[in-house]
């Protein structure tokens, strides 16, 4: 089984090699995220080094104050103890200042990394083809962008803090200890053995659990999003209780895996503390005898004990870091999987510019199939001259939408070439492609924001007048004016307030504003009432006069404005001619047309 990209995302039973492959790719991602901030990262570490040194100096200064300052003071010499006091204060102030600096700097780093990662995921998911989105589902992408990023954020927020400080603190304390008393240092080194064993155990167990936790949280999110998106149907069909049961199950799964992670950590963390405390006892034992033997000063033993204890102080932090790291690593695994997905409709490596498109669309020996057995469009040739308006008709599933999507390059053909003005769409600069070819689908999605924003999506730099003109052209102006705040009305979530027909009008205005050389309308007027449709058609007649258009419509009223009609059946074009020719004939179109006319009254 493959573990490339998002494949195998929900599996838990990775082999060692697969596991390594996944780890490697998430580490690569982590590396590439940290590279741009490496200068600041080094600075952070430097700050931490100094501030940790300041902190570590504390016990030494106290030891100095007692061992040297006390005897001196009995002699009436205030100097050493005064110095120790001042030095202690100074290290405190420096330490505090550095820590504050460090907190700000590390927040900057972690936020920069998050921003980078967010942007990358966003950009990449936008690049991935519809095919990917249809199978991966929006819920999972949302969970990648939300709960997975939360996990990484937790690591970055607390983690760098814990790791850098912990490691350095331990390193410094360790070094100070070794310098102060090599024998105690040796004891400390001995303590590292059980520590490593325990950590290794925790790593292996927690990795698997964290992976499951990511999957469980994604499932939860998928169900949540689906319910909220489909709330009307949920309520109308009374599925609330059934959904709650199901959601409750997912919540319980997630809770269970979380609780297990926590329990695992509940063994790891006290384990570390135990090791630390045992080490202190051993240092005391070893040191105590040496003091009695006269081999060690009492002050030194005290400092040694303090250092040993302090050495293990950040242990809990480190354990937390490691826990967070494991959690973030699983999130990174999932994210790196998405980022590893290759767009099946990739941008060209060397794009061909097409500043001004005429709009000639040519299919040459094009075939489209999902798999060799599932051929949707058998091999065909088709040329649509610039400026021609073509109507695509045929029953549901005849392949009309697929053909249209090939022109819009939502898909690439399995074989053959689709060309615009003689340029293979796959070579065309994406910007030029999208400027030249626009597709309006039946599903008229509105983004939150104002009506004007939504229309302006067709041309982000459009002036307000242009937006109004576009709305007028498709007959949307009146209803928009009638909205509470006119063009500035917020369309709310999923355009809740705007009716389906109005949504289509807005998306029409969008296309109108985009002013492409080739316009594809896929069932774009299905929800319009007849007067609106009439207005749209009037708009279309002027809009389509000098551009190429491909219109898919179940209602043949639209066909009237077409220069040419293509009738599709089982993925093949079975009739091709002007509307008049076809209506006059005895073919399928003539029959369909008659049926449609009949349906009108």
């Amino acid at each position, binding site marked *: 089984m493959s573990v490339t990209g998002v494949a195998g995302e929900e599996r838990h039973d990775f082999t060692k090699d697969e596991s390594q492959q996944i780890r490697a790719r998430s580490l690569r991602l982590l590396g590439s995220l940290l590279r741009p901030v490496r200068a600041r990262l080094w600075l952070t570490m430097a700050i931490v080094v100094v501030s940790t040194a300041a902190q570590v100096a504390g016990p030494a200064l106290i030891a100095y104050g007692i061992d040297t300052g006390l005897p001196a003071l009995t002699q009436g010499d205030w100097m050493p103890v005064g110095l120790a006091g001042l030095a202690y204060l100074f290290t405190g102030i420096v330490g505090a200042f550095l820590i504050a600096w460090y907190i700000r700097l590390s927040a900057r780093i972690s936020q920069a990394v998050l921003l980078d990662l967010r942007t990358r995921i966003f950009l990449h998911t936008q690049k991935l083809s519809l095919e990917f989105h249809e199978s991966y589902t929006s819920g999972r992408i949302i969970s990648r962008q939300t709960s997975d990023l939360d996990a990484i954020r937790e690591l970055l927020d607390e983690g760098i803090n814990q790791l850098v400080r912990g490691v350095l603190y331990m390193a410094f304390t360790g070094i100070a200890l070794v310098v102060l008393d090599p024998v105690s240092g040796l004891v400390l080194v001995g303590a590292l053995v059980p520590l490593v064993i325990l950590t290794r155990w925790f790593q292996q167990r927690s990795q698997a659990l964290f992976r499951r936790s990511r999957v469980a949280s994604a499932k939860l999110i998928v169900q949540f999003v689906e319910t909220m998106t489909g709330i009307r149907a949920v309520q109308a069909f009374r599925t609330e209780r059934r959904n709650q049961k199901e959601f409750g199950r997912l919540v319980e799964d997630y809770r269970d895996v979380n609780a297990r992670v926590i329990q695992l950590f509940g063994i790891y963390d006290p384990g570390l503390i135990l090791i630390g*405390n045992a080490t202190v006892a051993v240092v005391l034992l070893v040191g105590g005898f040496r003091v009695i033997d006269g081999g060690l000063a009492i002050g030194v033993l005290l400092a040694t004990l303090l250092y040993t204890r302090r050495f293990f102080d950040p242990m809990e932090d480190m354990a937390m870091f490691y826990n967070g790291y494991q959690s973030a690593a699983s999130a990174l695994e999932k994210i790196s999987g998405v980022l590893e997905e290759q767009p099946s409709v990739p941008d060209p490596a060397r794009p061909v510019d097409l500043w001004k498109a005429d709009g000639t669309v040519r299919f040459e020996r094009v075939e489209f199939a999902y798999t060799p057995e599932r051929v949707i469009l058998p091999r065909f040739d088709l040329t649509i001259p610039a400026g021609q308006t073509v109507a695509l008709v045929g029953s549901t599933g005849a392949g009309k939408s697929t053909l249209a999507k090939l022109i819009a390059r939502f898909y690439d053909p399995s074989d053959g070439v689709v060309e615009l003005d003689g340029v293979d769409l796959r070579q065309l600069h994406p910007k030029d492609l999208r400027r030249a070819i626009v597709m309006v689908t039946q599903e008229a999605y509105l983004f939150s924001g104002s009506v004007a924003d939504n229309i302006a999506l067709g041309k982000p730099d459009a002036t307000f007048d242009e937006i109004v003109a576009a709305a007028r052209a498709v007959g949307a102006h009146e209803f928009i004016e009638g909205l509470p705040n006119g063009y500035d009305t917020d369309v709310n979530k999923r355009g809740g*307030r705007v009716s389906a027909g109005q949504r289509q009008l807005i998306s029409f205005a969008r296309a109108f504003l985009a002013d492409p050389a080739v316009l594809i309308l896929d069932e774009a007027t299905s929800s319009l009432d007849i007067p609106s449709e009439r207005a749209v058609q009037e708009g279309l007649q002027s809009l389509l006069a000098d551009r190429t258009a491909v219109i898919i419509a179940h209602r043949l009223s639209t066909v009237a404005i077409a220069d040419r009609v293509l009738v599709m059946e089982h993925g093949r074009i079975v009739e091709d001619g002007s509307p008049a020719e076809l209506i006059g004939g005895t073919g399928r179109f003539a029959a369909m047309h*008659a049926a449609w006319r009949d349906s009108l009254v």
Partner: protein
Amino acid sequence: MSAEPQHQHPPHAQRIGTVRALLRLREYARPALPWIGLGMLASLSAQLVALSIPQVLQSIVDGPLTDGDAASVVPLALLVLGLGVLEAVLIALRRWFVLTPGTRVEASMRNALYAKLEDLPVSFHDRWPSGQLLSRAVSDLNIIRRWLSFGLVLLVVNLVVIVIGIGILVSMNWMLGLVFLVASVPLWIVGYRFEGRYSEVSRRSQDQAGDLATAVEESVHGIRVLKAFGRGKHALSTFRAQAETLRSTEIEKARLDASIWTWLIVVPAAALSVCLVLGVWLASQGVLTVGELVAFFATAAVLAWPIESIGFLLAFSLDARTATDRFFDILDTRNEITDPERPVSVERPRGELVFSDVHFRYQDAPDRFDDLLDGVDLEVRPGETMALVGLTGSGKTTMTALTTRLYDVTAGSITLDGVDIRALSREELRTHIAMAFEDATLFSASVRDNVLLGRPELTGDGGADAAGTADAAGDGPHEASGDPEVLAEAERVLAEALRIAQAGFVYGLPDGVDTKVGEEGMSLSGGQRQRLALARAVAAKPAVLVLDDPLSALDVSTEAKVEAELRSVLASTTALIVAHRPSTVMLADRVALLEYGRITAVGTHSELLRESEHYRFVISSLEDEERRQATAASDRVGRAPRDGRRDDAEAIAAAMADDGERADAAASALRELTEPDLDERGLTDREGVAR
């Protein structure tokens, strides 16, 4: 697109104290509270043990080490070891006590939030972007859980430890201890100021995170539009702007964090440096032994971390407070559409649906606007099929949504068999009235479960098999309840509904009716989805069927067949059908015209065509008029009125009588069309399915 950050502070959100805000968690945390208490106890004991270790060290330094008593070193070292083990055990206990109950609290809050959201009316969901809801359900509850089981425990314990520690310091030597006490005063002031400022930023950051989640959601749900217009980059730039806003808020948070840390380190350091000089002086004066001095500093060292941690724990608590507020934002939302206290039941509804002076306006509609529905009066008789016609945006869809109380009327009433629908439980009302929406929503479940969504009694226990199932339906063969009769009935209802909606294509799907569809399953075309949604409404076998432009995405021939099948259903069912097309209107016995928020005309299609200018405007197109001219003649002579709606055809013919003689090509083409195409289309459907 530009997604104004929408911060939904409910109007009553005057600020209450952080403690009181967090106390609201009691409701959900109650079962965990004893455990949290035990956890605190364990944690406190652990800290006390940690504090006692220096005491033991002192007695070792002052005792055997000074005396050179080698024999007592070993037992004392063992004592230290024993205390160390005890500390570890207590810490383990703390975790075991607290953490699992903590996850239960989180889970129960999550379920409560979900249940509340499902219960809240559609108008609530219209206002709230789902990213905001999602960030509450996931991130916020996660923060609360961690705070309860970690932050709260540490905060309480550390405060206690600090108090006890300072007590010990004072009892060791009151002068040295006093220095510490005095030093804590500025920290209280700093902490207080920090609280106010940090809470504000914390709320802002969590709201912005919710907005960002919304932006992500829209970018994936609207992916087709973004792709079609090549606006990925544009969407990216707005997304990025939002992400940057969040980043700067986070950095602001870090700045506040940094400042409190500074204080929490500088102040104790200053206190300790004073203590060092003072302590050494006291020792030189013989007031203190060296051992006591050592113990003093050792104790102070133990206190260093609890003191430093206060800043972080305070911030954590404030984040948890924000999360709690955000959670209760939803839970406190009053549901305006609730079940009556004593619901009435309509045993066998005849299906008489009456709108009496129904008014409706959206809550946020400006005052200068008239009600969207401004006194609708309409009576749909039992068994009658009523078409609802009106311009786009005239309120037809809203009117249909009122019938199942997805929204409630602002004034007036709707009755079912003479009973106000608000007197019924929502559950019952929605059993009697089933809807098909124009934008057909399919859930990630099998075709079977989607179609039988309104018939839980036929799909097993209505639990794991029900729609909305993330994986149960897709992973294995369908397992309904074992009762063969129920099973057979389910099959029958399913087959019938699919036949009526002309959704035979599902049999050609890879797993037939068990194929998983919806977002997590196979993607279907708009027309296919619409047919399944129609099948779902039909399968619910309601007394009243409410269909919102149910055929808009169907091609002409399929539409004709669906209509033919629907007639049989509609013959016995009351129906309210939103119609944009004459073809859909033809399904109806009568037509109601919605205009200016009122029903301005009710009658048969032909009556309205004759009498209402607005109706003609709404329902007939230009080509239609041409067509009328073209076919009037043939209508008069040849066309058999369909399905007994002779009066309509005659009326039209009459209306067109003066149009004169025209050709009749279309009429004959119709006859050619209807029959021979049938089989082929069935085939086509099956092929189309594959996509």
